[in-house]
């Protein structure tokens, strides 16, 4: 298909100062690790669950059996830590939605950019690699 892959480039894209991994592949090992976290976030599609979560976030996390690290990541809204602890973006995005944060905000978090910078990068054709 293509000779050169983006993985063999030594050119660093802008705004790559981040502790996020390049890619989260969500293999079975990852989703096993993230199961409780993802189920908890996924439950937030229901209004009654959002209300209970907002009432007492820590207790709600305990009900779902989150690990201490996952619970801390949720309470601190450490979006990258959630991914590192088995999160799936489609699930953690439910929590972001509850906080009225956009996918562009999260993109900024993962890439070390402001929401505005990230949105602008998309508007000017997206971030290119390789």
């Amino acid at each position, binding site marked *: 298909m293509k000779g050169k892959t983006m993985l063999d480039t030594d050119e660093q*894209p802008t705004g790559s100062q981040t502790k996020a991994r390049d890619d989260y592949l969500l293999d079975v090992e990852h989703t096993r690790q*993230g199961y409780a976290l993802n189920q908890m976030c996924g439950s937030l599609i229901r209004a009654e669950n*959002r209300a209970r979560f907002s009432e007492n976030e820590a207790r709600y996390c305990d009900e779902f059996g989150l690990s201490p690290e996952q619970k801390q990541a949720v309470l601190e809204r450490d979006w990258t830590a959630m991914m590192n602890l088995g999160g799936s973006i489609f699930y953690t995005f439910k929590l972001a939605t509850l906080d009225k944060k956009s996918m562009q905000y999260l993109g900024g978090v993962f890439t070390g950019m402001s929401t505005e910078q990230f949105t602008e990068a998309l508007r000017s054709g997206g971030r290119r690699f390789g």
Partner: protein
Amino acid sequence: MANVIWGLATSHVPSIGAAMDNGKTEDPYWKPLFDGYAPARKWMAEHPPDVAVIVYNDHANAIGMDLVPTFAIGTADSYDVADEGWGRRQVPPVVGAPQLSEHLVRELVDSSFDIATANRLDVDHGLTVPLSVYCSEPGEAWPCTVVPVLVNVIQSPQPTAARCYEFGKAIGQAIRSFPQDSKVAVFGTGGMSHQLAGARAGLINEQFDRWFLKKIENDPEALAALTREDYVREAGTEGIEMIMWLVMRGAMSTNISRVHDAYHVPASNTAAALALFDDLGDRPETAT
């Protein structure tokens, strides 16, 4: 007998649906995308199907991590529109085509695709946005019934691109052996390049997308030959959902012609595209 009359490949980005729902299609941000859709929409409106077989993936709305089917088919009379956590889209409920679903399930299992079935399935933006791309003003009811076909594109290992293409061929054969006279459109949804999480979030690969848009018509084998790693590297961790276009392509005959396509960056964090193909089947190419 039933036959496939056309195939539509389209992105299913939630914000495309929201732009339509909130009357923003004329905004400068959205206008180029919707202008690109216009010729395809006009043609589809002139060629309405009885049933749409919509190949899509759920995004943490109907399917959790409890059970992750690689391929599944909805077999219900109707499907509610999912509340994804920000309120239901104000679009009509989706009416099923249970007899075609049942036929597809049996034929697919007999051709060694051991798929899961769903009697209850709240359909999310992955399915409803493509329906809105086809029909922007459904009024009280969508103009066709629907068979939802789910593909796991989120948890790795996703099915290979080659398997998706073969799955599509089996779906096409099954449709063509359905004894009722019905006109079927097949939707392949998702893509194009995008990545939502990780340090490569915001990835867009226009070169790859345009190559894919070209190959999907007459050289789908080249796309089926790519590995899952190829898709993730070139199109992003979420861009891999483009393998669902291969299901659509597989369901069509070898004799197709491109009606229209459009490519636009961005729709939120995604490269959005549409490609519409007329299935000529055994009709001569000159027929319109």
